[in-house]
């Protein structure tokens, strides 16, 4: 079972979330179906989620490699579009990227067991991954 990293450290989902694709979400009947849990591939244009905004329960963005930073922009765009629900980074995200992920708008990160054993909890929660200074927030005011 995958590890969910939050500000409190490592955890697990008691009942694993069932994710649907963006295509499935877009074709779901508009009436009655709220709380959609949508998994996004990194090549998704965030604007495509605009029609779903009121009905999203959770969004998960895939990181195929820790060198692929598209997910950070997707997260920020979703937040700028007004999405306030749960937002998760998923896949090859490393401890050193946790603070970026949080500042980009993610709530938590889902990683594999392998990655979690190579980069144990203290690497994610240590002072280095909790950098206080944020130039961008300071400039935006």
């Amino acid at each position, binding site marked *: 079972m995958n590890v969910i990293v939050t500000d409190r450290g490592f955890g697990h989902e008691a009942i694993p979330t069932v994710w649907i694709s963006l295509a499935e979400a877009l074709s779901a009947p508009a009436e009655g179906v709220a709380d959609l849990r949508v998994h996004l591939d990194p090549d998704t*244009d965030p604007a495509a989620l605009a029609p779903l905004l009121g009905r999203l329960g959770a969004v998960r963005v895939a990181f195929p490699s*820790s*060198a*692929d*930073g*598209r997910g*950070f*922009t*997707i997260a*920020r*765009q979703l937040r*700028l*579009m007004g999405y306030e629900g749960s937002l998760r980074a998923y896949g090859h995200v*490393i401890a*050193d*990227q946790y*603070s*970026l*992920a949080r*500042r*980009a708008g993610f709530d938590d990160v889902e990683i594999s067991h392998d990655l979690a054993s*190579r*980069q144990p909890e203290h*690497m994610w929660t*240590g*002072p*280095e991954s909790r*950098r*206080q*200074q*944020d*130039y*961008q927030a*300071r*400039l*935006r*005011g």
Partner: protein
Amino acid sequence: MYVYSEFDRDFVRDRNAQFREQVARRLSGALTEDEFKPLRLMNGVYLQLHAYMLRVAIPYGTLNSAQMRKLAYLAQRWDKGYGHFTTRQNIQYNWPALTDIPDMLDALAEVGMHAIQTSGNTIRNVTADHFAGAAADEIADPRPVAELLRQWSTDHPEFQYLPRKFKIAVTGSPLDRAVIRAHDIGLRLVRDADGAPGYEVIVGGGLGRTPMVGQVLTPFLPQADLLPYVEAIVSVYNLLGRRDNKYKARIKITVHENGIDEIRRRVEARFARLRKEFRGVDQQMLASIEAQFAPPAFEVGRSALPYEDAREIDPVFQAWSDTNIHPHKRDDHAIVTVSLKRPGETPGDASAEQMRVLADLAQEFGHDELRISHEQNVILPHVHRADLPTLHARLRRAGLATANAGLISDIIACPGMDYCALATARSIPVAQEIASRFEALKLEHEVGPMKIKISGCINACGHHHVGHIGILGLDRAGVENYQITLGGDAGPDMVLGERAGAGFPADRIVDAVEALVRGYLDLRAGPAETFLDTYRRLGAEPFRAILYPTEKVHAA
């Protein structure tokens, strides 16, 4: 000059602590080399041909004497006694041990310097006109906005893992000494019809294997819109830029493949959302940064006569001041270019001792300011003319008075095969031989303005595409071969040079350059017509005929 705020100091200190810990985790295996690579790159650490290399930022090319002395200290303590100034206003140390680098970074932090984002697929060190704040032709000093961009881009959560590196340059002068059309984003300070300040925004320029001249994204962007607009550009690029092929990943290709109009449409849509996120605090910060770049207290009323006298009696001083001095916004001052291109030396290299001499001179004669130019020279931006003779004498003693700024031996050359893992040929020795040849021929001053630029492979770090004469070193079946381009120009109307024809082997390239230059002297309309002007007047054909006399050259 900008002095680090407490915020900057805390940031750099924490970042250095983080990198020290990342190095330890790499050594323990908690980080794989693949995971560590982007982390070390965003802290300026490259793996070169022989060793690690540390690239230190000199933001917008400005530094003071204490910072220069610290660079000298690093060279002596952790390298082989010298450093290499690059074409992007950085200094590189080619021989540090990985385990020493955290200590080097801590030493830099003591004087408000760092190596953050000097490498990697992120927004790099923001460069600016090296005569900023001093040139007579300037509309406004570009450094405050370069500093604002430095802060905005530092550790930006969206932009640390871009498709490829991202370079921004700013100029405050219509003469554009920052080559803004060869950058991912180029900014030129302009004023609108009512005199309000803003920026012309250029996007998608770059050299490398597919050279492109940047295009105008907007001719006038109001000053207060800058950060959200630039953020919109990089954000669009982060999603749209190609990640399947590293040679097609720069924004110039994104612009080329999607068209400038489509890019503009997307940027404006993104900008509309981002604009309101910036509530004006950035403009207050810009104003306080501007105050820190206030001009120094110039000496008024002092006569510049010693300068005139020295020019009359000392021909060596006269030759140097003809080439290495640029008009200052004050008539009684001058901008001095200290050439790091002594014939036979490695272009851009400075020894620890030379760095210390430069620091002393800046303190004594130059209001404690130094600049590093993209042409790999050191600038003293504010020197009273009366001090020039003494300054020149002191430079001579340190081997730093080479009178060649802007001349044929003032060559830009990338590190090439001597250091770079990607190189296909040597470039430094070619630069050295060309400089020595023209030194021996005593033709340099007669030839006048001439920019030779040399790259050791198609990545074009030596900017050969925009050299009046460009030289590209390739590998032809295991043998070095040098291709010549002609007519390039890095000025405000950037022009890419044209390939002259087949390449030359290493033992013939210097002869080929000499033949071109002698041919130019025959062809020019008069001594006032520069190589580039002659080339533009006559086109490539007469020059091709000089290079390839036995081939039949047909007029195009």
